[in-house]
C-alpha cells in the first residue's frame, strides 16, 4: 500500500469504518511508515480533542425563559391566527349567504314580472274564460312556509288570473318558492270538441 492510499483511508480507520481485511493492510503500512503513523496519531488526538470540547450548554434557567418564548412564537401565535381566520371565514360566509338571498329574490321578481307580461298575450281564450269563471286558488308556496307547514299567501283575483295565463308551473327556487296551479288545465280533446261544435 502506498502512502497516498494510506492517507486516504486514515479517517475511516480512525472511525472504524474499514473492513477487517483493508484495516489490516493499512495497519501493516502504518507499522512501517513513521510519517503515516504520525498522521494517524494526530487524527486520533484531534478527534479526542474535539470530543472533549463539547459544550455543556445552558442550564435550566435559560430553558425556563426560552421555552415559553418558543411556545409564544408557535402554538400561541397559531391559535390567534386560527381564531382570526375563523372569524373572517364566518363573516365571509354570512356575507355570501346574504348576497345569494338577494340575488335569488331579485331573480324571482324578474321571473314573476316576465310571467305576467308573457301570460297576458299567450293564454288560449277558452282557458282564459275558464280561469275567469272558476275559482282557482293559486298558492304561492314559500320555502319557509313549507318548512313551518302553515299558511300560504293568496294573490288577488286579477293577479291570479294573470299568473295562470303565464302557465308558470315552476317558479325559481328561493324566497318566493314555487308557483303551482291546483286545478288541472282542460284536456286537449275537450278543447278541440268545443271548438268544432257549431
Amino acid at each position: 500500500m502506498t502512502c497516498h492510499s494510506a492517507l486516504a483511508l486514515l479517517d475511516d480507520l480512525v472511525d472504524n469504518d474499514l473492513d477487517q481485511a483493508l484495516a489490516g493492510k493499512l495497519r501493516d503500512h502504518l507499522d512501517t511508515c513513521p510519517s503515516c503513523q504520525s498522521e494517524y496519531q494526530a487524527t486520533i488526538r484531534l478527534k479526542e480533542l474535539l470530543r472533549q470540547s463539547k459544550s455543556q450548554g445552558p442550564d435550566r434557567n435559560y430553558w425556563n425563559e426560552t421555552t415559553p418564548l418558543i411556545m409564544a412564537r408557535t402554538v400561541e401565535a397559531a391559535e390567534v391566527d386560527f381564531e382570526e381566520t375563523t372569524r373572517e371565514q364566518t363573516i365571509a360566509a354570512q356575507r355570501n349567504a346574504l348576497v345569494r338571498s338577494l340575488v335569488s329574490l331579485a331573480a324571482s321578481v324578474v321571473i314573476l314580472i316576465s310571467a305576467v307580461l308573457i301570460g297576458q298575450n299567450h293564454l288560449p281564450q277558452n282557458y282564459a274564460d275558464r280561469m275567469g269563471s272558476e275559482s282557482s286558488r293559486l298558492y304561492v308556496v314559500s320555502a319557509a312556509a313549507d318548512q313551518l307547514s302553515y299558511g300560504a299567501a293568496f294573490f288577488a283575483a286579477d293577479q291570479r288570473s294573470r299568473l295562470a295565463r303565464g302557465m308558470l308551473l315552476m317558479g325559481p327556487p328561493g324566497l318566493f318558492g314555487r308557483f303551482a296551479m291546483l286545478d288541472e288545465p282542460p284536456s286537449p280533446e275537450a278543447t278541440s270538441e268545443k271548438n268544432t261544435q257549431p
Partner: protein
Amino acid sequence: MTTIPELVDRFVKGDQRAFAELIARYREKIYSIAFRMMGNHLDADEVVQETFVRVFRKRKELTSVSYFSTFIVRIATNFAIDLLRKRKGHSSISNDTSTLPGSTQLDLARQVATPQQMYESKRLMEEITKALDQLPPKQRITAILHDIEGYTKEEIAAVFDCPQATVRSNLHIARTKLKKILRQRLRVKERK
C-alpha cells in the same frame, strides 16, 4: 416513556404538549450544534428559537419524514449556515465567557478541580471554536456533527441529503485543516 415517532405523530395532529416534549428532548443537542457553529451564546439562542419555530411551521411535512432527528438538525444547520453567510462565513466568537449564562460558568467551575484546569478548559474551547471558525460552513458543520456530536457519516448524509462520499470528503478536508491550525496542540510534525 413516549417514543419520538409517537410524539411526532401527536404533534402533527396538533398536540401542544407533544411539541413541548419534543422541545425538551432536542433543545440541548440543537443548542450544542448552534453554539459550535456560531461561536457565541446570543447567536446560538437565535438559532435554537428559529429552529423550533420552523419545525412548528413545517409540521405538515413530518408525515413523510422517517427520522425527526435528521429533520430538526437539517433545519438548525441550514439556518445557522444562512446566518453565517450573512456574516460572510465568520461567526462572532466571544472570547468573553460572560456572554454565557452565569450558571454555565458555574457549571464549568464545578466540573474542574483547580483554577488552572478551568483556565485550560476555557482555552481549549476558545481554540477549538476559533479553529472551526476558519472552516467553510459545510466542512465546519460536518466536523461538528461527526467528531463533537457523534453523528455517523450515514446520518450526516441524511441531514444534508447528499452522498456519503461527500460527507467523507468534507470530513477529511476539515480534519486536515484543523490538524494544521491546531498543530501546536496536537504536536503534529508537518509533512514534507
